């Protein structure tokens, strides 16, 4: 089990709080809370170890351009596959912009 922190530059604060998913086996929950403009801070609790590189790769794709909303994101992951992780992240960001 590990805890990871990732930071990215970001834009204006997220418009609302969002929660998607459930910490069921093979799934994860994603919480988004608005934060002060300019940065995005992500905390990941993962049941698996040694997944830091994989998380960074996935989140770089979404937040690496620094254009995402400023937020505090929390991910509680119970062994989801990269596919399920992508799905939940996409769901969360879609709900954010809804």
């Amino acid at each position, binding site marked *: *089990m590990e805890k990871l922190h990732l930071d990215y530059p970001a834009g204006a604060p997220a418009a609302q*709080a969002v929660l998607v998913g459930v*910490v069921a086996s093979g799934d994860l*929950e994603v919480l988004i809370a608005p934060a002060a403009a300019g940065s995005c801070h992500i905390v990941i609790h993962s*049941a698996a170890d040694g997944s830091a590189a994989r998380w960074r790769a996935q989140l770089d794709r979404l937040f690496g351009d620094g254009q995402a909303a400023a937020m505090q994101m*929390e991910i*509680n992951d119970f062994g989801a596959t990269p596919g399920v992780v992508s799905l939940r992240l996409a769901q969360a960001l879609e709900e954010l912009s809804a």
Partner: protein
Amino acid sequence: MSHQQDITRLLQGRSFIELSARERAHSLLDAGSGRELAGPFERLYSPWLSAQGIVAQADDGVVICKGLLDGQPAVIAAIEGGFQGGSLGEVGGAKLASALELAAADNRQGIPTRAVILFETGGVRLQEANLGLAAIAEIHAAIVDLARYQPVIGIIAGTVGCFGGMSIAAGLCSYLIVTREARLGLNGPQVIEQEAGVAEYDSRNRPFIWSLTGGEQRQACGLADALLDDDSVLIRQQLLDFIARGLPEQPRHRRSQHMLQRLLAMDSTSQADAASARQLFQSGAKL
């Protein structure tokens, strides 16, 4: 219930079972009236899970939603069966007990807050054992207290069902709504098989398990009050009907003399089955 009806319902998107605990709570309350209390953004994680290498959920698997039912104040406590089998730990248990207690306190001040519990739970979270058990005792106390003022309605929809100490909580409710997919039993099938052997209880024999503890059987025995299809609209309607009915004249748990007589009169040497259970409950006065 036909295959065609299943498809229709799925296409209409009215399945209750498919919904998360949070979605279920909001689907039952009057549209837009739900406000979550002590929610996931408070980050009240279990203090006990990470030390055991278990990833915690931000709401600890219990959603407390205050709102309106038919315009009257209500609180819904929904257990998320997807997280740790819906088992209750310290935090989730405290949320549930406290919500019920606050509803009772409201009633003592003339506010007719009623409560609904969505049971999707295996009972005590063993990783928090005695704090889970203590919380469940407090939930029992709170249901008995509140049920003096307002009907406390339980809903068991599946797929996890309602087991352990929370099956006792279900037995304390004024009314119970179940689906065919639901199960209601004290001990999980695996534990019974471990304790009593596979000949007594085969935990992998699904038709057998549902024949004894499934929603249809329980309702036929009078251990549940309404058997409904997996349909949010119908479930909400039944919920409102039970609330309108008010406190039951004689709650199930007050039939001790009757049940003792019936149990002592039956042939306990033959093994139980669905038919003998129905016979136990259906003969004589209604339970």
